[in-house]
């Protein structure tokens, strides 16, 4: 459970996407996406609404199926076959905008469910791991409450802990702070900064540019299903190459 366990083999990219295309019926949602994410790399994805950010990260764990191109996670080809997919999903945690905690289970049960059923851990082992990560997101004392009894920020931190309990190699975040009241955004971002600091490979869809500056190795800007720009935070914010990026930054940075 040491944090070094997040860092691993540098040679193999954590994620490698080549020529990815995705359609929703006639609508071309992702166009010729190429993306290589190294292990330990932290990537922030931004772009206007409807540009395909969610669709892109949801293709990585196949909550959406793509029609063209290839995705590799830790060297494994991502396909639709349930058995192989389940193995890949163990290594890829996901945090949603709307938390999606299981309301009929306690916080602790939310965190132990997948380790018990997917990793077949023993209950004491799963509970110990769960309490460890709940402590890390600083809510161990809520373990026996139900999600409905927690604030939005607390729920999102539980959702992060729930993913971490699977000991994933990669974490995907889809606008994790967008559904939160402003005063709770900080506690969630701090948790994510902690993760980034520990070397977790992360792809974060967010408009929190402060987080991008502090934690990202690379910022990716998407528009109309394409990756328009990909640069280090400094270059991205100070010297964006594309007019579209500048326009977007002007809008969100006011």
């Amino acid at each position, binding site marked *: 459970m040491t944090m070094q366990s997040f860092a691993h083999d540098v040679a193999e990219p954590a994620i490698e996407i080549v020529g990815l295309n995705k359609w929703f019926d006639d609508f071309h949602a992702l166009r010729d996406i190429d993306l290589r994410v190294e292990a330990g790399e932290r990537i922030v994805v931004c772009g206007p609404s409807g540009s395909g950010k969610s669709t892109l990260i949801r293709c990585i*764990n196949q*909550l959406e199926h793509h029609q063209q191109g290839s995705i590799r996670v830790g060297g494994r080809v991502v396909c639709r076959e*349930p058995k192989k997919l*389940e*193995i890949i*999903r*163990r290594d*890829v*945690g*996901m945090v*949603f905008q*709307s938390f*999606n*905690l*299981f*309301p*009929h289970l306690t916080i602790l049960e939310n965190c132990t*469910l*997948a380790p018990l*059923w*997917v990793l077949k851990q023993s209950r004491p082992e799963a509970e110990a791991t769960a309490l460890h990560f709940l402590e890390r997101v600083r809510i161990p004392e809520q373990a026996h409450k*139900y999600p*409905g009894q927690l604030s939005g920020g607390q729920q999102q931190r539980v*959702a992060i802990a*729930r*993913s971490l309990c*699977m000991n994933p190699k990669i974490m995907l975040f889809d606008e994790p702070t967008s559904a939160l009241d402003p005063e709770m955004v900080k506690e969630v971002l701090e948790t994510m900064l902690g993760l980034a600091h520990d070397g977790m490979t992360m792809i974060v869809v967010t408009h929190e540019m402060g987080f991008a500056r502090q934690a990202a190795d690379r910022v990716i800007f998407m528009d109309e299903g394409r990756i328009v720009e990909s640069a280090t935070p400094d270059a991205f914010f100070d010297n964006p190459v594309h007019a579209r990026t500048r326009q977007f930054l002007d809008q969100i940075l006011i």
Partner: protein
Amino acid sequence: MNAVALADPVPDARAAPVAKRRSWLKLLFGTPLNALLTIIFGMAIARMSVWLVDWAIINAAFFPAEPASCQAAQGACWSFVIAKHSQILFGIYPPEERWRPALVCLLLIGLLIYSVRPASWGPRLFGLWVAAIVAVFVLMLGGVPGLTFVPTALWGGLPITLILTVVAIGAAFPLAIMLALARRSKLPAVSALSVLFIETTRALPLLSILFIASIMLPLLLPEALLPDKFFRALLALLLFAAAYMAEVVRGGLQALPKGQSEAAEALGLSYWQRQRLIILPQAITIVIPALTNTIIVMIKNTSLVLVVGLFDLVSSGKAALADPSWSSPAAETYLFIAAIYFILCFGFGRFADSLERRRKVSR
């Protein structure tokens, strides 16, 4: 009005019953029209209660349980129900063997009551039920050493109602869940089959399904393959209940946000794990009221098997009334039967209610 409003802005515990009584009085006598209606209905209810007590208790005949006591009485003839209780409850089951259906009823009712306690839920309870159902059929049918064979054609009364209810609804529930899941399946063939089954079954009245099962099936199937009349009716009820319950369960599945399934998927849970651990527990909780409704209707629907010649509780009551030496006290007999149905349905309703409250507490 104002005085009242000022008098109890802070309802403390002692004031609560007083305030409650006051609001009742207001409801009953608040306006002249309400007061008038209260008086009219109050008098009507009082008169009816007096008449009912006179009829059902004071002027009623209880003992001796003979036709003569009935003729002398001006009120209800309970002596008929007392004299014929065994025939009403067990139909045409051979009288000297009636301890067997009696035992079956006690077994089923006992296990039903035991199953209500959350503390007894678990794999053990499931095992108990399987054992109980086997025991029920062995006891009823016999044909094993020590028990003479009693064909289903001679079964009747309460055990038929109870067995049909417990077995048909008990087996329909898991089938309904499978149908509901199948209907939402991404595999076109699976969902089409489920839709076809559900829609056809729902489009037919239960009566016609029972007729198909009892009259048409024998024309279609060779004698050797044909299950006996009781089991055909049981199957018809089971399938009918499953179709309705499947749609109720599907309503619950649809009410769940997509994120629940996606979160479970992202954690690597398999399809069946997701359904069992995340989706169904929530979906079924949502539809407890609707499911209760369907099940209560199905409990009462079991009485329709009389049209295919099975002697359930209602029809064995009717058969008992045919005795010419009695003056056919139909109201008393049907009230007795209604009371049994009431206990079954009301009991189930209370159980569902407690389930729902239990889930609310855990939220």
